[in-house]
């Protein structure tokens, strides 16, 4: 690993080491570019991942305070944890479930496809689908995705057998063990899936792709990476010419440090990416960096959904096996006759016993109804609804100066008012999931409300017109040529696919662009 001087203004500084930042760091360093990778969290490993659910949550999760306002039920159910992201080397690729469906062609043309929708801020992506497909191919090869490139699927667990048979009985056609960045056999220097069911706690065989043990060590091996762990960025600085010049961060001892930079790439996951841009306000940029459009933090999108639980009178043991290895793709289409625009995936989902009551059931549920669900832990099945969230300009990240983080900086406030399209989609998905379970003999079906978002997107979105977004099709901000957005914040709309694959694909594409621009001395 390289030691890069804090005064080295040739360095590319990437903030955040997850799907976007970790992948970008590897792609740039392997092209001979020096990268300082700043990561707020500590570095874990296959050996140190905790196997106690509560401890694993504490080990990996971003627990600095955030606040939430708006009519979303998340504000009532999870006021202290309005979104669920990571603070660890590898970012959310440590706790993700490995599901890698693609965004669909019409989803990147949602404004054109769905038309004008009241109260929504849809735009078309400024990228051609054929171009995105090319990078999806590259990303799927790199991540060794099942059911792509001739790779077999994951085997069917007990839990998937329930989903599969129910789905087929109600007429669904496209039902399988999902596209997963999880090894079915040893590959890429990583082990195979032994169906532990502890995907979210950090995969101890490394079967699940994570930048922690793929992109980051490979970047280190180039000799061009300086990874600084437990360092939290607080501000991006700029010069008189309006270009960014470096990043201010706190080191593990809490002391302020400054790293000079030729280029800064922000990849802190949507909530913190927007917060950092807003925190970097200056006399020249009084509303934060890259925010002349007033779009930074706006259009905050998650996925519409929540859990649906089928309760049976026969054993299932849904916690045994790969957590998300099951998908119904049939509802991922635009069909307004269902009463809403866009579509959704139904995905297999299990929760460990300690997490089920906290994360899987609404806060309004207690007493006999609640106990009934838990008493059937051995014989329940779960579906996670992953639907396209309708973006709104007023669903946004702002700074909350009334609440400060451990360094005394304003925390992010997340404001979410659920769009009526989401409510209609969620109701449809809950009805379909209920029918699916009843088709295989469920004695009862219950559902959660919206859960804290693991999929946070679109807060610094790519747009063709600089007035509609923050970045161009390469994630380069419209306002500042050497400032890039390198995570899900840059997605123009959320689509209905779990976002990690798309973030990796965009990072691969962005790395080519940055390297070419650097060679041409354009930035």
């Amino acid at each position, binding site marked *: 690993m390289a030691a890069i001087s804090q005064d080295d203004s040739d360095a590319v500084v990437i903030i955040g080491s997850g799907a976007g930042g970790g992948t970008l760091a590897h792609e740039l360093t392997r092209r001979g570019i020096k990268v300082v990778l700043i990561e707020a969290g500590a570095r874990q490993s296959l050996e140190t991942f905790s196997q106690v659910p509560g401890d694993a949550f504490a080990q990996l999760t971003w627990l600095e305070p955030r606040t939430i306002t708006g009519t979303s039920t998340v504000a009532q159910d999870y006021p202290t944890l309005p979104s669920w992201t990571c603070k660890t080397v590898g970012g959310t690729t440590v706790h993700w479930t490995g599901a890698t469906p693609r965004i669909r062609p019409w989803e990147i043309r949602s404004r054109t496809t769905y038309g004008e929708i009241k109260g929504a801020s849809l735009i078309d992506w400024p990228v051609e689908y054929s171009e995105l497909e090319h990078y999806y191919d590259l990303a799927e090869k790199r991540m060794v995705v099942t059911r792509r490139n001739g790779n077999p699927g994951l085997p069917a667990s007990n839990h998937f057998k329930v989903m599969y048979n129910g789905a087929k009985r109600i007429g669904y056609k496209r039902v399988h063990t999902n596209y997963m960045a999880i090894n079915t056999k040893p590959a890429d220097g990583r082990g195979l899936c032994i169906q532990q069911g502890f995907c979210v706690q950090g995969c101890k065989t490394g079967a699940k792709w994570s930048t922690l043990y793929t992109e980051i060590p490979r970047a280190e091996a180039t000799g061009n990476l300086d990874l600084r762990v437990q360092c939290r960025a607080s501000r991006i600085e700029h010069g008189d010419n309006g270009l960014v010049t470096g990043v201010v961060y706190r080191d593990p001892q809490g002391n302020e440090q400054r790293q000079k930079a030729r280029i800064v790439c922000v990849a802190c996951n949507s909530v913190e990416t927007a917060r950092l841009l807003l925190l970097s306000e200056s006399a020249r940029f009084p509303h934060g960096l890259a925010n002349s459009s007033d779009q930074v933090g706006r259009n905050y999108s998650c996925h519409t959904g929540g859990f649906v639980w089928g309760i049976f009178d026969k054993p299932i043991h849904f916690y045994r096996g790969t957590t998300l290895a099951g998908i119904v793709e049939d509802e991922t289409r635009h069909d307004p006759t269902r009463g809403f625009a866009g579509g959704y995936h139904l995905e297999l989902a299990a929760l460990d016993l300690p997490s089920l009551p906290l994360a899987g059931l609404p806060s309004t549920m207690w*007493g006999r109804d609640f106990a009934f669900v838990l008493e059937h832990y051995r014989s329940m099945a779960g579906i996670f609804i992953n639907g396209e969230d309708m973006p709104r300009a007023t669903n946004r990240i702002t700074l909350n100066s009334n609440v400060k983080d451990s360094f005394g900086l304003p925390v992010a406030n997340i404001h979410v008012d659920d769009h009526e399209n989401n409510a209609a989609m969620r109701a449809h998905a809950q009805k379909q999931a209920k029918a699916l379970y009843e088709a295989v003999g469920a004695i009862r079906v219950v559902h959660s409300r919206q859960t804290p978002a693991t999929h946070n997107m679109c807060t610094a979105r790519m747009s063709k017109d600089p007035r509609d977004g923050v970045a161009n099709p390469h994630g380069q901000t419209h306002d500042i040529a050497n400032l890039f957005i390198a995570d899900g914040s840059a997605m123009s709309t959320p689509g209905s696919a779990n976002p990690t694959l798309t973030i990796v694909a965009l990072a691969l594409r962005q790395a080519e662009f940055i390297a070419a621009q650097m060679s041409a001395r354009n930035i």
Partner: protein
Amino acid sequence: MTPKNLMQRREFLGATGMLTGLIAAGTPLALLAPGRAWAMDLHALSSSEGATVMAVCRTIAPHDKLDDAAYALVVQSIDGDAAKNADTLKMLRDGLGHLGPAFATATESTRVQALTAIESSPFFKTVRTSTLGVLYATPMAYAYFGYEGEAFSKGGYLVRGFNDLRWLPEVPLADSGPVPGA
């Protein structure tokens, strides 16, 4: 430990109350517990307040066959929070005072009615969150609810029944994938 030196220990630790119980024989918990009789010191709440908190926990999460010893861990956690924070203790005392001493022995429907009336109070939310956070995260709960926990140390569920369900048809290979080693 004899009752006498148990009392001395309680005074030494400044105990404010105690919960006691006897684990029913033949339950999963009996296999895990070192002995059938248990006693737990409280450091902020009185014995009767502790008993009322336990009744609130049992009303929020009524698992009839789950032993009091499992709920006592929730009370211990709530009592520990109250011992550390005077505001928390006051909030708990206010809530318990509102419910009154008869709550612990009232019928379930009476208890449900009383809690429904205070569902949005900080007292109810705090006790509910603690109940959910503590009750299901213990070895007792794993045994009772049938959760087998981590499997990495045992080779994963790949060799421990991840696909042993037989009451539904198998999934065609095209929609799933081969089982490693099968």
